[in-house]
């Protein structure tokens, strides 16, 4: 890079500005990265809990469904399941965690009362109710897991991006700028030295010319004073 840089004072000033800006950016990004990692660790703990909850709820729901199918028959369970007409609704909004936009998922109508499930109360049993209850709980935990895990994914991507930016500044841009700065400074110093040398040279030359001129003048004036000697005698 240094070879592409014009070794001028203006360029040096510009590079100084860029170095200052980059260092400030580097510090800020480092702080952001550390903050994101801390937030990520919190979300990671939450995600672990939520995932455990999903696994646990899934096992419970599946077991209750198996028991309902076993005791009430597949036909009765399928019939009760297909009777549902009001499906749950999901609203996705977004929230901001340290500049990262993550989804905020809100659900409605997941948990239902017995009379809202669409199947008749009189011709069904508590086994079907319990299987439905367990699946509603599972669905709620899946929605929560979707929110937390998407947030975690977004945070992870942002951490990666920030880390890449910090590294780019630390290991690429700043060293290059510093190298360019050193190069310009060296060049400028060299130019200064050359200038001084040139000035010295000019000065010496000038002094020599002046000395020569003085000597010439002295010679000229010496010859004129000897001329008036005439033959009076």
């Amino acid at each position, binding site marked *: 890079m240094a070879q592409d840089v014009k070794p001028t004072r203006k360029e040096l000033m510009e590079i100084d500005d860029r170095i200052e800006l980059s260092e400030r950016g580097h510090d800020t990004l480092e702080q952001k990265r550390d903050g994101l990692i801390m937030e990520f660790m919190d979300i990671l703990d939450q995600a672990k809990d939520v995932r455990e909850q999903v696994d646990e709820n899934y096992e419970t729901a*599946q*077991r209750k469904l*198996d*028991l309902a*199918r*076993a*005791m009430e*028959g*597949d*036909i009765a369970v*399928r*019939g009760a399941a*297909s*009777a549902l*007409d*009001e499906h749950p609704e999901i609203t996705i909004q977004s929230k901001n965690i340290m500049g990262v936009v993550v989804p905020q998922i809100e659900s409605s109508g997941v948990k239902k*009362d*017995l*009379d*809202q499930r*669409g*199947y*008749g*109360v*009189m*011709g069904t*049993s*508590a*086994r079907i*109710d*319990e299987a439905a*209850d367990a699946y509603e709980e599972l669905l709620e935990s899946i929605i929560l897991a979707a929110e937390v895990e998407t947030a975690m994914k977004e945070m992870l991507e942002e951490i990666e991006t920030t880390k890449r930016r910090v590294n780019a500044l630390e290991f690429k841009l700043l060293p290059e700028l510093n190298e360019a700065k050193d190069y310009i400074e060296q060049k400028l110093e060299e130019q200064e030295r050359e200038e001084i040398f040139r000035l010295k040279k000019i000065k010496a030359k000038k002094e020599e010319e002046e000395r020569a001129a003085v000597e010439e003048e002295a010679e000229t004036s010496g010859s004129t004073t000897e001329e008036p000697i005439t033959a009076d005698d």
Partner: protein
Amino acid sequence: MSTASSSSSNYEYVTARTRSRKARLFDEDDYRQLTRMGTGEIARFMEESEYDEEMNDLAARYSGVDLIEFALNRNRAKHFDDLLRWADGPLHDYIARYLRRFDAWNVKTAIRGLSSGAARDEIESDLVRTGELSESRTDRLLDANSVEEVVEVLDGTRFGPALDDAVDEYEESASLVPLENALDRAYYRSLLSDMPAETDRATELYVEFLRAEVDFRNLRNALRLARSGSSVDPGEYYIDGGRLFSADELGSLAENTNELIARLRNGVYGERLSGALDELEEADSLIGFERALEEVLLAYSNRLSQLYPLSVCPVFAYVLEKEREVRNVRAIARGREAGLDPDEIEAELVIL
């Protein structure tokens, strides 16, 4: 799907045939063996039993546990149809009115299928073809393209007026609940209304049994509604015909389980229900209580059949035991398929 004749009841003939059928039901040892078998072995076991014909007929269309379940349903329908075929006079009526629960089931299956966009074949495979509805009417149910058409098909049947009343509510709410509840309510209403004029002690006890079933159904529904946290008054789902509670009483008692249990212990079923009530007191879940209620009903019907061998009671006891067998074998097969432990499955079975 046969019709009642106007002759007198042929208890001797039907009870003799029922006894022979009852002897072929699986016993406790069979269940113990079945709970330790895989689904393939269960299917093989069934092929060598009462269910061989159904297993062979359905084997080309279904496999695994579905095959077992459909064979059980078809065999049950065949046996119950036989009962209707054999019985004459009031006995036919007693059996038919109980088997109307399958008519209600078939109508519910048809409307649920239509509502969920299921194919005709899928709906048909879920029907249990026994009960009072004729084959042609059942086929018309399957051919219906909308819930309203199903209601039209049932015009002139016992379910017609109830569905006519509920269809407006269905159209307003787009929920099947009003229709399903109307069907179940119509079934329970027809169970006890216009009983034939036979006033022997066995018939009286049979009617008492049916009323106990209505009471237990009311009890289960009220407790389920109360436990689900629903704001609906359990009285709205009250079925007439029981002798234990009025609709208002049931609504208020369901909120207070302790009071309800005390009331049941002091009521007409107190002694028989003590085990079920202990279950209700001890467990959070209603499942154990429901199972205990089933056991009470089954034990009661068996006792009646022993006390009155030439009456409706043995026939009815057979109906319940056949139902129990279907439920138990299905539970074992589905439980084994789902990888449940044999002891866990055995604990869920209703075995007397």
